[in-house]
C-alpha cells in the first residue's frame, strides 16, 4: 500500500521538476520544480536557486496576501555576520507555475536543515557546551549584527535556525526573516504573550526584546531533553505563560544546568524592562556576571474568582483572553453587574474599575444595537489587559500592522466593513490611550488612524479604504484587480504592467481603479496630484487627458523605453480627445498624427499632441463665429424665401426706381439737347 502511495508522489515530483526555471534579473535562476519545504517560512515557499556566478542558493517566494518586510531589506543587507543569510538579490519574477509575478528573495549558499528537523519532538536535548560554544554564539552574533543596524529578526525559532550542513553546528545560521511579516511563521511558544495572542500576520514589528525572548525559548528547547510544551495547545501555552510566567513554563519539566538558569531567567523575563539585551548576553558570554531578575507582570490576582462560560478566573488578563469567545455572555456579565462587583470587591484596583467604566460607557455610546456586544468585548479586553492586542470581531491585531490585515482581507476578498468600523470608531485611539496610561510603549498608531479616518470621509478615488491600506502598509504591492497577475510596487512597475495588459485580448476598459489611484497617491503623489481632479472628473475627455499626462510624466521621469501596447491601448481612447475639436478638419489631422505616433510607444509624444489649450481656445472661438454666421445665413434665407414666395411684385419697386432714374436721365438729356440746338441756332 505504501509503495502504491509512493508512485503518484514520484510522478508528481517528476512533473514538477520539469517546470521551467524562473530567472531574476536575467542571470539568477530559480527552480520551481525543486522545492525546499524545510526552508519554507509559513506560506512563503522555498526553492532551489542558482546565483549569477553559478553558486548554490535558495529562493523564498513571498505569498500574495502577505506584505514582505521590504522596508528593512537595506538594513538587513548591511548587517555583518557570517551567521546571517546573505541576500544575493531580491525582486519581482514572472513565476511561471502560477503565471503571475511574485516577489522573491534569493539567498546565497545552502544553509542546511533546520534544527527542528533533528527530532520528532520540539526539544533537542543537546549538550550544553555544544550549544553554548557553537549554536548560541552564532545566533548571538547574528542577532547582535541585526540589532546593531536597528533591525529585529522577528522569526527566531528552531524551525528557522539552520545547521549550516555542519555536524558540530559550527556553521549554524539564523534563517531568513524578510519574506513574511515578523512573527508570521513563529509559533506561540516563541512569542511573547501579547504577540502570541495576535493573528500571525498582524503581530506588529518585532522588537529587539522579542528576538531575545525567542532566543531564550530556542535555547531552552535546544538544551531541554523533554518538550516542556508537550500536549499543550496554543491557548494553554499562553495561559501558562500568563499565570506562571514563561520561565516557569520552560523549567516546568526539566532541571536546567545551573550555569544556564540565569541566562534563561534573563532572556525569558515577561517584563521587557528586566529582560536581557543582546549586550547583556555578550557580557555574560565574556564571563561577566549579569544578574537576572524574573520580571513578573504587575497584574493583580483576586482571591475570589469570577465565572465565565462555566470556568473560574482569578486574573483580569486571563479573563480578557476569553471574552471574545462569547460576546453575549460578556454583555450579560456586564449588565448583571457581576464583572463590576468582581473588579470592585475582589480585584480592588482603582485603575481597573475606571477603565471598566470607561469601556462600558464607550461601548454604549459608540455602538449600534447590532455591534454592541462586539464593541463591548473589544473595549473590555482593553480595560482588563491594556497590553493585549485589539480584539474585534474575530480579528486580533496590533494596530501597527493593521495595514497587513487590510491587505490580506483585500487579496482574500473578505468583507471589509469591519475595517471601516475599526477605523471610524474609537477603537484604536482608545486602545492607544489605555496602553499609554498603563505605561506600555506606543508608536505612531493614533496619528496614522486619524489620517485614515480622514481618508474614509472622502468618497472619491484615491481615498477610502484602499488609501488606508497603502498608507498603513507602505510595502504592500498594488492590489488592483486589474493587476492580479503583476507585482506592482511603483509607478514605473505600473506602466510596465499596463503595457503587458495592453497586449492582452481581454484587457479592461480603463487603466485606473480606486486601488491604482490610491497607490499612486501614496507612492508617486507628484505624478498624480496635479491631474487628480481631471482623473476623478465624470467627463471622459478630462479623464483620458489626465491618464495620458500621468503616464507620459512617469515614462519620461523613469526613462522607460517604448510602451507600444500601452500606447495603442491609450490610442483606443483618443477619439474622445480628438473629438474635442469642433473643426472636423483639425480632427482629421489630429487623428492622423495620433495614428502616426501611437505605434512608437512614446507616451510623451502622444501627450504632446493634446497639450494644446491655445488650439482648443482658438477652435472654440472659430466655432462661435461659425455658429453666428450660420444663424445670419439662416435668417437671410428665411427672409428671402418668404419674400419670394409671398411678394408677387418682388423687385418691382426696384425696377420702378431704376425706370424713374432712366426716365429722368432721358428727359434731362432731351431738354439739354433741345436747349443746345436752340441756343446754338
Amino acid at each position, binding site marked *: 500500500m505504501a509503495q502504491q502511495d509512493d508512485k503518484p508522489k514520484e510522478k508528481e515530483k517528476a512533473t514538477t521538476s520539469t517546470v521551467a526555471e524562473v530567472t531574476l534579473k536575467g542571470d539568477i535562476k530559480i527552480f520551481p520544480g525543486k522545492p525546499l519545504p524545510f526552508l519554507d517560512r509559513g506560506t512563503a515557499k522555498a526553492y532551489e536557486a542558482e546565483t549569477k556566478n553559478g553558486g548554490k542558493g535558495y529562493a523564498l517566494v513571498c505569498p500574495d496576501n502577505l506584505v514582505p518586510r521590504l522596508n528593512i531589506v537595506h538594513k538587513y543587507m548591511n548587517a555583518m555576520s557570517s551567521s546571517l543569510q546573505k541576500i544575493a538579490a531580491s525582486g519581482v519574477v514572472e513565476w511561471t507555475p502560477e503565471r503571475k509575478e511574485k516577489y522573491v528573495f534569493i539567498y546565497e549558499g545552502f544553509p542546511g536543515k533546520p534544527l527542528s528537523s533533528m527530532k520528532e519532538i520540539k526539544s533537542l536535548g543537546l549538550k550544553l557546551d555544544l550549544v553554548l560554544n557553537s549554536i548560541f554564539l552564532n545566533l548571538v552574533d547574528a542577532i547582535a549584527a541585526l540589532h546593531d543596524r536597528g533591525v529585529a529578526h522577528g522569526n527566531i525559532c528552531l524551525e528557522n535556525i539552520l545547521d549550516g550542513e555542519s555536524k558540530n553546528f559550527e556553521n549554524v545560521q539564523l534563517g531568513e526573516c524578510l519574506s513574511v511579516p515578523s512573527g508570521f511563521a513563529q509559533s506561540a511558544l516563541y512569542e511573547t504573550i501579547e504577540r502570541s495572542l495576535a493573528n500571525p500576520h498582524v503581530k506588529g514589528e518585532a522588537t529587539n526584546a522579542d528576538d531575545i525572548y525567542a532566543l531564550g525559548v530556542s535555547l531552552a528547547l535546544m538544551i531541554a531533553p523533554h518538550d516542556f510544551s508537550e500536549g499543550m495547545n496554543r491557548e494553554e501555552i499562553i495561559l501558562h505563560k500568563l499565570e506562571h510566567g514563561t520561565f516557569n513554563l520552560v523549567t516546568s519539566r526539566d532541571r536546567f544546568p545551573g550555569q544556564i538558569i540565569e541566562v534563561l531567567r534573563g532572556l525569558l523575563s515577561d517584563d521587557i524592562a528586566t529582560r536581557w539585551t543582546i549586550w547583556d548576553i555578550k557580557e555574560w558570554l565574556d564571563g561577566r556576571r549579569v544578574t537576572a531578575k524574573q520580571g513578573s507582570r504587575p497584574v493583580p490576582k483576586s482571591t475570589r474568582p469570577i465565572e465565565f462560560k462555566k470556568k473560574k478566573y482569578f486574573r483580569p488578563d486571563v479573563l480578557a483572553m476569553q471574552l471574545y469567545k462569547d460576546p453575549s455572555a460578556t454583555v450579560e456579565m456586564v449588565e448583571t453587574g457581576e464583572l463590576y462587583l468582581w473588579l470592585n470587591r475582589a480585584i480592588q484596583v482603582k485603575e481597573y474599575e475606571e477603565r471598566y467604566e470607561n469601556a462600558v460607557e464607550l461601548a454604549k455610546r459608540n455602538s449600534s444595537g447590532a455591534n454592541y456586544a462586539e464593541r463591548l468585548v473589544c473595549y473590555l479586553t482593553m480595560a482588563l489587559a491594556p497590553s493585549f492586542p485589539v480584539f474585534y470581531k474575530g480579528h486580533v491585531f496590533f494596530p501597527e500592522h493593521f495595514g497587513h490585515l487590510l491587505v490580506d482581507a483585500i487579496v482574500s476578498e473578505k468583507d471589509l466593513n469591519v475595517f471601516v468600523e475599526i477605523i471610524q470608531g474609537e477603537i484604536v485611539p482608545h486602545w492607544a490611550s489605555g496602553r499609554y496610561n498603563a505605561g506600555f510603549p506606543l508608536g505612531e498608531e493614533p496619528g496614522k488612524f486619524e489620517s485614515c479616518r480622514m481618508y474614509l470621509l472622502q468618497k472619491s478615488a484615491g481615498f477610502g479604504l484602499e488609501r488606508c491600506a497603502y498608507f498603513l502598509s507602505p510595502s504592500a504591492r498594488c492590489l488592483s484587480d486589474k493587476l492580479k497577475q503583476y507585482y506592482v510596487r511603483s509607478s514605473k512597475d505600473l506602466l510596465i504592467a499596463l503595457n503587458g495588459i495592453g497586449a492582452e485580448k481581454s484587457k479592461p476598459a480603463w487603466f485606473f481603479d480606486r486601488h491604482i489611484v490610491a497607490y499612486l497617491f501614496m507612492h508617486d503623489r507628484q505624478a498624480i496630484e496635479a491631474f487628480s481632479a481631471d482623473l476623478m472628473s465624470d467627463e471622459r*475627455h478630462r479623464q483620458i487627458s489626465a491618464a495620458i499626462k500621468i503616464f507620459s510624466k512617469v515614462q519620461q521621469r523613469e526613462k522607460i523605453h517604448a510602451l507600444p501596447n500601452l500606447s495603442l491601448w491609450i490610442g483606443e481612447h483618443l477619439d474622445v480627445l480628438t473629438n474635442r475639436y469642433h473643426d472636423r478638419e483639425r480632427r482629421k489631422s489630429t487623428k492622423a498624427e495620433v495614428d502616426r505616433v501611437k505605434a512608437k510607444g512614446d507616451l510623451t509624444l502622444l501627450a504632446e499632441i493634446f497639450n494644446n489649450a491655445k488650439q482648443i481656445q482658438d477652435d*472654440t472661438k472659430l466655432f462661435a463665429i461659425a455658429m453666428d454666421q450660420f444663424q445670419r445665413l439662416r435668417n437671410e434665407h428665411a427672409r428671402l424665401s418668404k419674400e419670394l414666395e409671398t411678394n408677387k411684385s*418682388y*423687385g418691382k*419697386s426696384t425696377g420702378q426706381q431704376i*425706370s424713374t432714374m432712366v426716365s*429722368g436721365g432721358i428727359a434731362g438729356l432731351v*431738354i439739354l439737347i433741345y436747349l443746345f440746338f*436752340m441756343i446754338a441756332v
Partner: protein
Amino acid sequence: MAAKKKKNSFKYRVLLAAAFMTSVAILATTVLFFIGMLPSIIARFVDRSAQKTRTLTITFMNLAAVFPFWYQLVQKDHDLAHTLEILTDPLNIVIMYSGALVGYLIDWGLSGIIATMMVQKGYSRLKQIAKMQQELIVRWGEEVTGELPLDRYGFPEKRKEET
C-alpha cells in the same frame, strides 16, 4: 400739438396762396403746363405705389415733351393767346402726351425686366446660402446649426452618454 398743426396749416395756406398768386402772375405758363402735363397729373392720382415712382417716370418724360413748347412761349410772347395757340394745335398735344406715353412704357418695360432679374437673383442667393450652410455643417458638425442642445463646451449634449 394742436398749435403746431394750426401753424402748419397756416404755413400751408400761405404757400398755397403764394403759388396761386404766382400761377396767376405767369398764367400763360400755368395753362401750358396744366394742359400739357395733364397725363402726369392723372398718373399722380392713379399711381398706387408708395414712392410714386411711376408718376415721376411719366412726369419726367412728359416734362421733356412739354419743355420745347414752354421754351417757345417764353422766347416769343408770354401771353395766354400764344398758349392757346400752342394748345389748340392737336399735333402739339399729341407730342406732349406722347412724352407721357413713353414715360409709361419705360416704367412698364424696364421695371418688369428688372423685377424678373431680381427674382432670379433671389433664387440663386437662396441656393448659395444653402450651400454655405452645408459647408459649415460639414466643417463644424450638426451642432453649428444651433438646433441641438449643447453642453458647456459647445458639443451636443448626447456626448455625455459617452462619458
